[in-house]
């Protein structure tokens, strides 16, 4: 009697399991992780805003229609490479995350890049800047979307040199990103007939720039290149106004400035700043409509280009997974992403190159004067547009081992 019950029970269980897996075989589960700075100087250019953008991408993709289930997790890497890699490893090994998204702070991105390569998952980079990510450190598992230091140097740097800023002094954030940005901008300045008179390295997240500004003033360089970002750039420009930098005939070159920095400085202080972004919320109807939806969850804030990048790359990634019907092989998904041309309301039409670099136009903006701004968020006027092919470093110059010719 007992044996009979056991056999029946076992058969029933096996049948249920078979039916169960048969039903689930059609549903691909994809898990995404947004990893960025949620609490410190870079939290406004990503942070919660990136999480919202990723959620919007998932909603717009409509997983149910493709027979997929998409989950989203997020974490704070505190701008520390060891924290970032620990979270990445835990996500990959324990939580079965398939793709990591955003990761500003280039030192963290470079470290996570290696973990992703090792585990054969996907790295969708938006926040990080270092051009090394598509250069010597390029990876078949990574896509570098929004911008990079070479593009910034070639856009902002070149335009400033061409309009008379021939002598430079650099204020550089002392880590991977600052060094990369200074190196790329130095190359552009020298190539266009300019001179670099000197530079000083400052620790990440510096409150007081007075002594560095003093050294910049003493150099008598026409342009003080700010090879830093976020709170550091804001502090440097604010204190520069106090020390009469512009009155003394020098100018700041904000090599990486986001719309959030301009809001924090206020138009009175920031007016006239030249900067490059690849997305502006007020560019066209598509960007405006998207921004309005994003602002429903982030009232009063405006999305930086890195947030827009998170939306666009997440959407493209999900499309690639749907086409492949699987998310497990990172290399295959990225190869598919490079295969498919991109199209979204934020960056327009574009494509991803062999080295993982996403190509799209770059816009040179100038910050409006306070009287020119008609409504909240109306801060930029468009100076020039660089076509996608010219905006980014040529494929052969990057030193990427994957590019053989």
């Amino acid at each position, binding site marked *: 009697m007992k044996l009979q019950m056991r056999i029946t029970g076992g058969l029933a269980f096996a049948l249920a399991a078979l039916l169960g897996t048969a039903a689930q075989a059609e549903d691909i589960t994809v898990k995404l992780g947004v990893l960025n700075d949620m*609490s*410190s*100087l*870079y*939290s*406004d250019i990503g*942070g919660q805003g990136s999480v919202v953008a990723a959620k919007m991408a998932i909603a717009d993709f409509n997983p149910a229609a493709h027979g997929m289930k998409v989950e989203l997790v997020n974490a704070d890497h505190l701008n520390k490479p060891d924290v970032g890699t620990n979270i990445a490893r835990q996500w990959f090994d324990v939580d079965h995350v398939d793709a990591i998204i955003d990761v500003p702070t280039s030192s963290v991105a470079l470290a996570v890049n290696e973990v992703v390569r090792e585990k054969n998952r996907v790295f969708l980079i938006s926040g990080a800047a270092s051009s090394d990510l598509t250069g010597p450190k390029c990876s078949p598992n990574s896509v570098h979307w929004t911008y990079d230091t070479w593009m910034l140097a070639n856009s902002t740097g070149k335009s400033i040199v061409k309009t008379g800023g021939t002598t430079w002094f650099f204020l550089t954030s*002392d880590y991977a990103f600052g060094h990369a940005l200074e190196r790329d901008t130095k190359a552009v300045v020298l190539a266009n007939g300019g001179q670099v008179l000197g530079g*000083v*390295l*400052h*620790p990440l*997240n*510096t*409150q*007081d720039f*007075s*002594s*560095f500004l*003093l*050294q910049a*003033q*003493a150099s008598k360089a026409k342009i003080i290149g700010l090879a830093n970002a*976020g*709170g550091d750039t*804001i*502090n440097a420009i*604010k*204190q520069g106004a*106090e*020390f*009469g930098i512009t009155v*003394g005939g020098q100018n700041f070159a904000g090599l990486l400035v986001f719309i*959030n*920095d301009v*809001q*924090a*400085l*206020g138009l*009175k*202080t920031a007016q006239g700043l030249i900067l490059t972004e690849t997305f502006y919320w007020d560019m066209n109807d598509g960007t405006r409509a998207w921004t309005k939806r994003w602002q429903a969850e982030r009232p009063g*804030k405006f999305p930086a280009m890195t947030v827009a990048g998170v939306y666009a790359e997440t959407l493209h990634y999900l499309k690639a997974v749907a086409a492949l019907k699987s998310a497990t092989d990172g290399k295959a998904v990225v190869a598919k992403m490079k295969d498919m041309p991109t199209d979204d309301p934020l960056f327009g039409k574009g494509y991803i190159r062999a080295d993982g670099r996403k190509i799209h136009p770059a816009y040179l903006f100038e910050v409006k004067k306070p009287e020119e701004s008609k409504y909240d968020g109306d801060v930029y006027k468009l100076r020039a547009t660089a076509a996608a092919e010219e905006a980014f470093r040529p494929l052969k110059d990057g030193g990427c081992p994957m590019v053989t010719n």
Partner: protein
Amino acid sequence: MFEIFGIPSQALFGQLLLGLINGSFYALLSLGLAVIFGMLNIINFTHGAQYMMGAFCAYLLLQYLGINYWAALIIVPIVVGIFGIVIERLFLQHLHKLDHLYGLILTFGLALIIEGVFRNYYGSSGQPYQVPEALRGGRNLGFMFLPNYRAWVIAFSLVVCLATWYAIERTRLGSYLRAATENPTLVRAFGINVPRMVTLTYGFGVALAALAGVMAAPIYNVSPQMGSDLIIVVFAVVVIGGMGSIMGAIVTGFVLGIVEGLTKVFFPEASNTVIFGIMIIVLLLRPAGLFGRPA
């Protein structure tokens, strides 16, 4: 002019002056911390958050009520001081008899909560706050351009620091306070309301932090993490100066500001860490701090 270690003397004097300015912030903040620890035996980790609240209060007063910097210098310390008194009455008074660590953990937790709330509403990029009209511009001293506002910072913090030191070390009220910390029971027997003194002292320490915040608002970025960036350095200053010594905190604040300024000239990458290096050396040689009284 002549050169010192390859740096022209002009640049050096400029950096020394800037170091003095930074030192005045360190002195003001470490004074508040030293008063609270010296008098109340509480390790007040909320100090950085209270400094940030002072700056934000000044910003909010200007933004929504049109109250300018000068009035804010008086109103903000009172407002934030009252907030400090509330914290003391609600939480800290229960921890006096316990180990120091409980106060540390409680105040640290409070700091995280306060910062998180502000960051939730305001983001981390910061709010704009202009230098007041009367202090704009600067004068060319020959070896550097000194903004008027920075000169005001040195002068005002010196005055506040010396006034506080005088009040605690040389007046009757100060002597009651010092007696109350050494032997509360005996002092109570004389009819002096010890718990009220303790509460008011904590409020005063917090008010000092808020005052530093108002003074920082025009020149440093008014952001929720402005306090946490500074508080670790200030703790190092207080430890070097000696945890219970008021004059020690003031002198050490200014001196360390100058040392940091010099480091920024000769080896800028280490400017973040030089103060901690000094702290390690001082603790190895004089564990009670430079001016502290050994326990």
